[in-house]
């Protein structure tokens, strides 16, 4: 189910589960791609990448060719992913140091980076590292490098916060991670294209259990259709 084969304004009958969201993201990743999956929800995408498609996972702490979590008795504390979770290495893997790893990311060699988000703006600005709460201890990790480095950065997130606030916004109010870096949002309610190329108007690619009108009201934004 690739976005390109779905007519503009297509809609599923119900919101996607997180597993379905992960499968939807995975469906857009081309065979042979090099992919970085951010911490949190995006990690789930790994379970839905088709075997044999030659998709290679990068983890920015220094491994290309990352495999799934090991059996408990094979856990190696020196083989972890960016979320500090034990992983494995696949045949054809390579290790490198942090400067080389972020050179790989920043230099545009990773085809797709899937990120979580607190907020994304219609022009593709991303806020995913700081809640902006006074007194909170800040931490950024590789978020800013990942946001701007890949050939294509996409976001996987629930479209609304727990309090029902939209996370796709006209302008981010939280501290930014990157400017104009996100090109697509995969959410439980819709797939929406964003980014600086769209003149500030997000485009609905497909929706799940809600109409475009309902989405527009929910978000307080107008959504263009994908051009015919």
């Amino acid at each position: 189910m690739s976005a390109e084969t779905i007519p503009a304004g297509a809609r599923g009958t119900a919101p996607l589960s997180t597993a379905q969201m992960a499968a939807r993201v995975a469906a857009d990743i081309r065979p042979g791609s090099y992919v970085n999956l951010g911490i949190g929800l995006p990690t789930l995408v790994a379970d839905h990448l088709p075997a044999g498609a030659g998709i290679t996972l990068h983890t920015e702490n220094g491994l290309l060719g990352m495999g799934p979590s090991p059996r408990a008795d094979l856990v190696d504390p020196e083989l972890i992913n960016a979320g500090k979770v034990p992983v494995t290495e696949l045949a054809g893997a390579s290790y490198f140091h942090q400067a080389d790893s972020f050179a790989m990311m920043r230099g545009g060699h990773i085809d797709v980076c899937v990120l979580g988000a607190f907020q994304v703006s219609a022009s593709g600005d991303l806020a995913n590292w700081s809640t902006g709460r006074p007194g909170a201890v800040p931490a950024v990790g590789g978020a800013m490098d990942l946001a701007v480095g890949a050939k294509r950065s996409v976001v996987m997130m629930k479209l609304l916060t727990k309090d029902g606030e939209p996370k796709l916004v006209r302008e981010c109010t939280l501290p930014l991670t990157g400017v104009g870096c996100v090109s697509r949002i995969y959410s439980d309610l819709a797939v929406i294209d964003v980014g600086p190329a769209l003149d500030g108007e997000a485009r609905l690619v497909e929706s799940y259990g809600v109409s475009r009108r309902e989405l527009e009201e929910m978000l307080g934004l107008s959504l263009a259709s994908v051009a015919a």
Partner: protein
Amino acid sequence: MTVQLARTPQEAVGDVADGSTVMIGGFGPAGQPVELIDALLEQGAGDLVVVSNNAGNGEDALARLIQLGRVRRIVCSFPRQVDSWHFDEAYRTGRIELELVPQGNLAERIRAAGAGLGGFFTPTGYGTPLAEGKETRVVDGVPMVFESPLRADLALVKAFRADGAGNLVYRKTARNFGPVMATAARRTVAQVTEVLPAGSIDPESVVTPGIYVDAVVPIDSTTVLAGAQPSERGATS
């Protein structure tokens, strides 16, 4: 200079002056030179500036150094972790300064220092609070931020094996910041599982050439490697 083969972490770390800048390798627990940090704790230097990706976990090592008020300032990318309560407390009460740097910029700034460069333009962080007040420039249509080299008086790193020439190889994702930090400090100390005779590490596979290493100390780290399959310990020729 010839590499010092130290018998203990204390001997390897040696004298550290108050006010020193100390780089500490590791990404979370992987590659954290715990025994060298313990030696630094014991040695007693204070008013330190620490450069490290994280700001300590639980009660030990870097967390303890912070708890004891020995760190004036920390330069890192991800201080907040589930068990970083000593940093959190020191930060909230204003007892420690924090310079938050995106992880890739942190690595590249350290590399720049080791490579004798005067700084670089990077797209990372542009337009964010972490670039506030920094010089910017548009390069080939991409807005960029200027970042300066980051150097240290001392680097403490954890490698896998050393040879008598000070060459280092690392193990899996424990490699992380070790190779760049080793280049950026006036003195670099590495803890390893074993020190082999010069010539035992394939010259094609050396990750940190001995020129960057001032002292090595073997540490029995069987516990850390508990999960590794025995065959892997012999994988590096």
